[in-house]
């Protein structure tokens, strides 16, 4: 029988705290078949643009579509790599420079699967999830972020 996954919410209002990350790591200490965790964190950079310096990024998303797509990506990554766990958290709203806006966490028995899956997840999140970042500059201008 196919396992039906209901779209798990990946969105967090505001920045992702270090405490949340610590809690998430602690939650895995009872899973004694895990040998390696791979974590990627996206942090807001104070980029210098011709129009001013970035102070924050305000994230919006087409949430329903993003959650459906995230389920699809999760299933594809789970079927490709022997993972124990996979977690995706993305911020919505205004995230200031130095704060964390993306937290991707994969775990597996042997390290390679967790590392490769984490890299691939980050690439797919950036390319395939309908999320938009608007940079808020110190000139009080705004500018839509472009992923490279």
């Amino acid at each position, binding site marked *: 029988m196919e396992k039906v996954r209901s779209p798990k919410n990946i969105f967090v209002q505001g920045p992702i705290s270090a405490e949340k990350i610590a809690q998430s790591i602690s939650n895995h200490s009872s899973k004694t078949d895990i040998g390696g965790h791979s974590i990627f964190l996206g942090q807001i950079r104070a980029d210098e643009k011709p129009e001013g310096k970035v102070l924050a990024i305000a994230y919006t998303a087409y949430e329903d579509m993003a959650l459906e797509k995230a389920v699809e990506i999760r299933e594809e990554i789970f079927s490709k790599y022997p993972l124990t766990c996979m977690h995706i958290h993305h911020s919505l709203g205004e995230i200031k420079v130095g704060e964390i806006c*993306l937290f991707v966490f994969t775990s597996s028995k042997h390290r390679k699967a967790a590392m490769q899956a984490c890299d691939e997840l980050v690439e797919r999140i950036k390319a395939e999830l309908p999320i938009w970042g608007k940079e808020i500059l110190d000139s009080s201008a705004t500018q839509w972020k472009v992923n490279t």
Partner: protein
Amino acid sequence: MPERILLKAFGMLAEKMGTDTLEVKNPGSSEVLKQQLLAQFPELKDMTFRMALDRKLLQADTDISQGQEIALLPPFSGG
């Protein structure tokens, strides 16, 4: 009574159009809808965007039925 469909716009597109939702008469297909929008919002001509129907990206011209959800999506920039 002609069918009405609901459009959602996101990011830079919503900003340029001045709204994030728009109700229009169903023109029957995504390509016709796109041409209608470019006529109504000439500023969209200089912008890159894709369309989604019921939360799936469209790859080609697709028929639109009443009750379906259409969205206009500028390039993604999450992460």
